[in-house]
């Protein structure tokens, strides 16, 4: 073993948020030059550690050391930024500023007046490096979630910091973008940059990291070289119990089952065109496609978030009013939006209330809502989806990212929908939660619902009875169950077998 220098060290960190203990005497030590994974279930305290390592929050107990030196005082932000750069899990893109300015926020210029022209030039160079196809002059508010994520990454990596933290950078990215990110990370590692990488995609940990730390229930469980900790033992360390791999169920789609969701000649200018789609009861239909394929636009039209330029949508036999979510929901649709922060939940309201908005009419008579029944429903959903929380009354704003996602799925499933449209349901959720989310979708199908599952995740798509592959706004393939990874990826890349 070569003597290694510890680049970053956190010792005995404890952090409380009111009644919640986010970190309980946890620590981490990262050797210089390595890429270190931090894994753990949703709410294990990973992001809290990130905010402490970047000087945004002060630990209640414990200390942070950089290369053996104590961390700078909280107020000295510049000193922190010289030591560590970070891609935070929560967006730090400022929507009202342009892409260029977001990239060079608070460092638009070293001194004197800002030259916008040169700033845009620098921004373009940076964007090109990461293969981000956006104009440096667009407002960040006009970007989609993936593009915003790419911006965050490009910005953090462009600092030239010797230590970079990436908190779930891949959750919103598709395959090629992830590969570009990894190429970049490898190049940085060759330059001796130390990195901490957080992801729920464990195969990514094996691909890019040398060592891994596992957190569970606010504590540090184990640190090891990735080679010493095979996949199943890693999962066991995260969950604290022996966890089997997800058992994909076999269903035989009944070709005579009633159609619960269908689209005829659907088209939306600039997004997709002439789409026909039929989903039968008990069937899960995947919708896949790489960047800008139009799959999200299509799914959002199905639920009424967009008004299609052509064609009709039928839910459960009812022609729903175009561009009208309530009428689709009333016809029996459940829906998980892509951007959970924007459309998924009301942060100040409790878990129980968020999850029961669509079924509020069933929680009491004459327009009333019984808080007791709501809480009871909420508690049931918390149990069913294994949400980590202090109780049904906790505001969703206080939940960790993955748990918030479960609340969104709970909302979609609340009404026992006949048709379900879920977009990227497992983005940012841990392995076990992923199992319960996918299980919940399969359960719904088992109860006779038809589902459309939009995702780039092959793991997610494996529960589908068939996968529709979109490419440049058209459905180009209908792949039945039993595909191989290569086959599907090739289809998504627009390559004919």
């Amino acid at each position, binding site marked *: *073993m070569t003597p290694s220098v510890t680049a970053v060290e956190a010792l005995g960190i404890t952090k409380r948020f*009111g*009644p*919640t*203990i986010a970190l*309980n005497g946890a620590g981490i030590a990262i050797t210089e030059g390595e890429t270190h994974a931090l894994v753990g279930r949703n709410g294990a305290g990973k992001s809290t550690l990130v905010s402490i390592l970047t000087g945004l929050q002060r630990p209640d107990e414990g200390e942070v050391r950089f290369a053996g030196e104590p961390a700078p005082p909280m107020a000295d932000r510049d000193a922190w930024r010289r030591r560590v750069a970070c891609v935070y899990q929560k967006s730090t893109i400022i929507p009202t500023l342009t892409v260029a300015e977001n990239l060079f926020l608070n460092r638009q210029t070293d001194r004197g007046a800002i030259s916008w022209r040169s700033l845009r030039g620098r921004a373009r160079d940076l964007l090109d490096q990461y293969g981000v196809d956006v104009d440096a002059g667009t407002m960040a508010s006009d970007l989609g979630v993936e593009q915003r994520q790419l911006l965050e990454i490009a910005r953090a990596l462009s600092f030239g910091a010797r230590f970079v933290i990436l908190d779930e950078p891949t959750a919103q990215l598709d395959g090629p973008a992830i590969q570009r990110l990894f190429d970049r990370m490898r190049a940085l590692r060759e330059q001796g940059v130390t990195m901490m990488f957080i992801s729920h995609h464990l195969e990514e940990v094996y691909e890019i990291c040398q*060592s891994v730390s596992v957190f*569970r*229930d*606010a*504590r*540090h*469980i*184990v*640190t*090891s*070289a990735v*080679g*010493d*900790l095979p996949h199943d033992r890693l999962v066991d360390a995260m969950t*604290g119990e022996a966890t089997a791999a997800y058992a994909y169920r076999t269903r035989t789609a009944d070709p005579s089952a009633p159609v619960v969701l269908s689209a005829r000649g659907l088209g939306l200018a600039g997004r997709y065109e002439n789409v026909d789609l039929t989903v039968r009861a008990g069937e899960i239909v995947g919708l896949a496609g790489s960047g800008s394929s139009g799959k999200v636009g299509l799914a959002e039209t199905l*639920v009424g*978030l967009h008004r299609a330029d052509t064609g009709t949508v039928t839910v459960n036999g009812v022609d729903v009013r175009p561009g009208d*979510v*309530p009428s689709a*929901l*009333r016809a029996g649709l459940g*829906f998980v*939006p892509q951007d959970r922060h*924007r*459309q*998924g*939940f*009301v*942060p*100040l*309201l409790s878990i129980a*209330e968020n999850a029961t*908005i*669509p079924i*509020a*009419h069933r*929680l*009491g008579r004459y*327009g*009333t*809502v*019984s*808080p007791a029944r709501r809480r009871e429903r909420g508690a049931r959903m918390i149990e069913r989806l294994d949400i980590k929380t*202090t*109780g049904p*009354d906790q505001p969703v704003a206080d939940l960790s990212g993955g748990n918030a996602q479960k609340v969104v799925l709970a*909302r979609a499933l609340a009404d026992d929908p006949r048709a379900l449209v879920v977009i990227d349901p497992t983005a940012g959720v841990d392995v076990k939660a992923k199992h319960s989310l996918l299980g919940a979708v399969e359960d719904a199908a088992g109860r006779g619902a038809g589902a459309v599952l939009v995702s780039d995740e092959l793991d997610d798509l494996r529960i589908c009875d068939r996968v529709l592959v979109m490419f440049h706004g058209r459905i180009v393939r209908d792949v039945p169950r039993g595909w191989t990874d290569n086959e599907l990826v090739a289809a998504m890349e627009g390559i004919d077998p």
Partner: protein
Amino acid sequence: MTTTQTPPPAPAAQAASRGPGLRLGRFRDLTLVPVIVVLLIAGSFVDPIFLTTGNLTNVLQQQSALALVVLAEALILISGKFDLSLESTVGMAPAVGVMLVIPVAAGGFGLDLPAILAIPLCLLAGGLVGAFNGFLILRFQLSAFIVTLAMMIVVHGLHLGLTQGRSLFELPASFLYLGSAVWFGLPAAIWITGVLFAVAVVALGYFRAGRSLYAIGGNADAARAAGIRVERVVWVVFVIGGVVAALAGVLETGRLGGISANQGVGWIFMAFAAAVIGGVSMDGGKGTILGALTGVLVIGLVENILTLKGVPGEWKQLVYGSIILVALMISRLAGGKAQD
């Protein structure tokens, strides 16, 4: 490389302190209660009559019209919008209602509609203003603040123009009745305001429609995605706000026995102050009607104490503002949460 291992966690640690957090949360919107207690104690030292039923009844009656405006504003703020024009409705709506029924000689339009219609017409006028506000904000996607700021000027301008700036002294009996009637030992205005607050507390706490205001104010996109008809609900809230403000105008008119051209002018600041110190957020989705009510009470008690104490006019505003500031700090310290 070696594998380091720490002892398994004790999952109990996290759940330990669940109880108090919950209980505190429930009373987070009543952080003004200690302020009210302090004021009641201070008031009783200022003047012995302060704590008499008569005086406290007076305070409630004096605040009832403002309280209704606060109620209307709280509903609108909780749904994430703004309405500055409520203050002008407080003057314009009763003026129009009255002018439609009184003779020309008394300042009416000369339509001489049946006097019984005065109050319904007044509420209708208020509702129309709210509907128009909602229409402009939702259909044209204009900023609520600025639309209702302009409407505040327009509606007050309408009042001025129609009355030619004159006060109306001849009121229909129904207005005067509401201003002076005593039901079960309390002025009618207190009952009406109390009942409306109770209705609003129940509606916002236990009814689907009421809860949807919180969802809309907290995150309109999410509310829409959850199937709430955001536009319709917001529009209805604006209409209700207008009607409630018009009712406030009716009570105020009855209490004062006339409608001056300035009725309601300047109220909106007090209404915001009451709602916000009572815990209603200007960002929407936060706060309760009960909290807003405590805000009104604080303002009413401060004014009453200052009047009883006889603070010289030129220093009164300074004292008044300082007390509000101190109340804010107390409620901040008692509530524990940062405001926004």
